[in-house]
């Protein structure tokens, strides 16, 4: 299983603030995870269409699209941060 968390407009477009899904075989990077997620619904596709506008954290640490993901990970997907 993999735990997914969504924030800001990524959450709004997908329609839920998170989900726990079985991680399909062959998905070992953030990039392949995003490709797989984008095919799950129209909302997922809309949220993930522009990868330049997507940032990711794996287990609460910012990660690049080439970062590894494995079962048991917590992967958060969100727009560029705008705090401060």
């Amino acid at each position, binding site marked *: 299983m993999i735990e997914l*968390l969504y*924030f*800001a*407009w990524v959450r709004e477009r997908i329609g839920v603030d998170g989900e726990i899904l079985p991680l399909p075989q062959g998905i070992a990077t953030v990039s392949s995870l995003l490709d797989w997620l984008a095919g799950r619904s129209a909302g997922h596709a809309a949220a993930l269409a522009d990868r330049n506008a997507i940032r990711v*954290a794996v287990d*609460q*640490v*910012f990660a*690049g699209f080439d970062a590894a993901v494995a079962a048991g990970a*917590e992967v*958060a997907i*969100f*727009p*560029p*941060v*705008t*705090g*401060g």
Partner: protein
Amino acid sequence: MIAVAVQSTPIDAAVAVAPLTAERSDVGAVVTFTGFVRDDNGLTALTLEHYPAMTECALATIAAQAAARWPLSGGVIVHRVGRMVPGEAIVLVAVASSHRSAAFQAAEFLMDWLKTKAPFWKAEERAGGVTWVAAKASDDTAADRWNDRRGESVFELRPAV
């Protein structure tokens, strides 16, 4: 050494900053920055969303970077979350040091990195509806000037917990 807090209640700057100098006689400078919600273009409210499991750790990592770069005697970061209205404080950063230069630089560093490396998102409310704030390239540029000679950034660092 730099205390961090995330709260949904109003920020009291005096209460937050007081511990930096309480019962100390070695502090020569305290620089305090407070960011407020502005009523730009009819803004009526601002909501700060965050990633609770990550936020305090990210703030602690940023604080540890500041402490490693400048000789600070103490500091505090307080970030508000939830809905707030114009005039309310969003964020407070205060740093104490023997001399002003380190305090000024560390405060600016903390704000630049808070804006680009902590998991917060702003949504603006106006009469026409709610819109998410887009990240500004100028904030990235401001943050990048603090990268060291190796070009290392906090994105490659594990949280200092």
